[in-house]
């Protein structure tokens, strides 16, 4: 714990807050996006926005894997689990509760008789495949670059063990593509203006700080990579303000204790070996983005669940009252959503941002709600 204390220490937080106040120019507005859901959670959990001057606004980004998965992809998994009795569908816990079309979830799929099991890692799914040779085990894999290497390792393990009853429903997505999509959306009419990004912590341990150089140069925005403790975040916000004031637009690494410039090259190599880039992939909120996601590569095609079970993707709309799309683009805050805290709560989520603890709505519901109470109308 001593290691963590340093980054949670009250005095350091106050010193950093003072430095931010001193550095911020009162005559201008600063709008930064923390890309990563883990950062959104930490901002709310530690009440860090209270430590910032009024002219610095933090906008919550799309970096929550459960949040950006579109309804159509959930429907594919739900249909797979309910229409193939031979399949054991393995998934991470949060995904069980995200509503697909007509409010169906993997949990209801389970109640309908689908064999849906919660796992903590894809390696557990490989184990299940080994123990159930007469069943088909499908790993419903999602996530940014942090969760991709474990999936790659699981596929390689299954290949090595000759497990022909294991496959992956691959939904891994790429962070730089999402940053680019956010910035592109920002040039539109309803787009949100951003002065810089707090760069992801965990993702950057894999892809490295250099992976953001292109985005930073293309859009001329500062990106500061941060850890997940409160003082990490305050430090990165200070560095962003400094860059903006200097007119700089570079990538800085404030999480050097974990992130190297080139990232984890071994993990990158393994992912390149197992996966290839998809032509296009639909994201919730960000639309269809070319080259923004991964699929099983040529050497591991036989592990692709989409091909094995002839799964076809159909784009499906979000719940009509749900503002997740605008929230993921930073155009709306959770409190701007009509159903926030009424029809949509962590117990009964309508949209994905209310499900995962890293979702902006869930974080705001758990930690920030007391700031703006309003008359709550009972939901049906």
């Amino acid at each position: 714990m001593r290691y963590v204390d340093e980054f949670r220490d009250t005095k350091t937080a106050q010193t950093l807050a003072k430095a931010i106040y001193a550095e911020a120019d009162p005559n201008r507005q600063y709008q930064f996006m923390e890309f990563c859901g883990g950062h959104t959670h930490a901002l709310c959990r530690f009440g860090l926005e209270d430590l910032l001057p009024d002219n610095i606004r933090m906008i919550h980004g799309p970096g929550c894997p459960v949040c950006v998965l579109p309804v159509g992809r959930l429907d594919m998994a739900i249909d797979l689990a309910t229409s193939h009795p031979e399949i054991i569908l393995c998934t991470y816990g949060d995904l069980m509760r995200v509503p697909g079309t007509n409010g169906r979830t993997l949990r209801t799929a389970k109640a309908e008789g689908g064999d849906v099991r919660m796992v903590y890692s894809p390696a557990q799914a490989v184990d299940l495949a080994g123990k159930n040779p007469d069943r088909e085990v499908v790993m419903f894999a999602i996530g940014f670059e942090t969760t991709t290497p474990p999936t790659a390792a699981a596929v390689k393990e299954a290949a090595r063990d000759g497990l022909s009853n294991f496959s992956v429903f691959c939904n891994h997505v790429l962070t730089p593509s999402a940053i680019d999509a956010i910035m592109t959306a920002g040039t539109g009419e309803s787009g949100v203006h951003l002065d810089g990004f707090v760069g992801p912590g965990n993702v950057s341990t894999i892809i490295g700080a250099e992976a953001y150089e292109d985005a930073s140069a293309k859009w001329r925005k500062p990106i500061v990579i941060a850890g997940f403790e409160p003082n990490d975040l305050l430090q990165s916000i200070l560095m962003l303000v400094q860059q903006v004031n200097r007119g700089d637009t570079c990538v800085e690494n404030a999480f050097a204790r974990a992130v190297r410039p080139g990232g984890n090259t071994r993990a990158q190599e393994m992912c390149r070996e197992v996966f290839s880039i998809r032509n296009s992939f639909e994201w919730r909120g960000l639309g269809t983005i070319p080259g923004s996601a991964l699929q099983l590569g040529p050497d591991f095609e036989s592990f692709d669940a989409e091909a094995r079970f002839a799964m076809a993707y159909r784009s499906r709309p979000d719940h009509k009252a749900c503002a997740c799309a605008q929230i993921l683009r930073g155009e709306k805050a959770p409190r701007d959503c009509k159903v926030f805290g009424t029809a949509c709560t962590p117990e009964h989520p309508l949209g994905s941002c209310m499900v995962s603890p890293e979702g902006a709505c869930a974080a705001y519901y758990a930690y920030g709600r007391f700031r703006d109470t309003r008359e709550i109308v009972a939901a049906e």
Partner: protein
Amino acid sequence: MDKLNRRLFPRKLDFRNGNIELAHGAGGKASAQLFEELFRPAFSNPELDRGDDAAAFEGAARMVVATDGHVVSPLFFPGGDIGTLAIHGTVNDVATSGAIPRYLTAAFILEEGFPLNDLQTIAQSMAAAAREAEISIIAGDTKVVEKGNGDGVFIATTGVGFLPEHIVEKPGAHRAQVGDAILLSGDIGDHGVTILAAREGLPLSAPIKSDTASVHTLAQAIIAAAPGTKCLRDPTRGGVATAVNEICRASGTGAILNEPSIPIRRPVEAACEILGVDPLYLANEGKLIAIVPEAQVDQALAAMHAHPLGERAAKIGRIIEDPDGFVQMETVSGGRRMVDWLVGDPLPRIC
């Protein structure tokens, strides 16, 4: 209260298609809703409706009763077992009313095939805990269910106690007032982390054991030192976070906690980091929250510090005005956040 309930439970229980979920037993928001919308309408009376952990008898005003079911898994854990919990849980509920616990009844639901040796160990633990608390187990019942229809042993206990002469108005959550201090008798999360670590097989760098204990002498010491004590609660399931929310709901107030002053042991804090759980929501089985007028804080804390179960007691917050009943917290970073009720059931069968 109606408006508050609407905010707290925006979606009513679905009596047509709904089913019991684990969350209904977690002691958090779903448990409160089950009581509010199912049991309370069925059984409603002024004593039950107050929603305290122990109730006084009509016609026997000095007598208090409380009841508690115990389903902990695993049955045996560092610091205790289901037997010690079955005594301490009910003794502590009686104790929060300011009463001195005297008698207990126990009902055992046993599963076919459960080893007699284990049952004997549990009974001996109960006997030892009862002796220590100076109570007698005066009645009981045993039922056995077929193998597969239970999980070893469940124990339900009911406790009876008597309010001492000097307590004029028994403490209750509805009595908390704006300006009162929130005191906590010691470190949070020990029981919850012990159970979790035992289940996950988590190797811990430092020994952690359940804090399970009878707190009635501590309760008496607090009331004797601070006669204005408004409310006592033992923050079991749902943890300190949920207990403070319950107090605010019952008294129509809000609260603000101060994160740096909430006592927690380092190994527990470290284990919570690893397990990804918030210790504010973890069960405690030997702690008391006391709502005390600000003017009596010093004497209450002194009395707690002088008691073996209150050495690490601290003032952790205060009751504030908030018609919406929110519990807030000043964080270690110096910002503010909300402390919600426990939602869902991340840790079933913790006690």
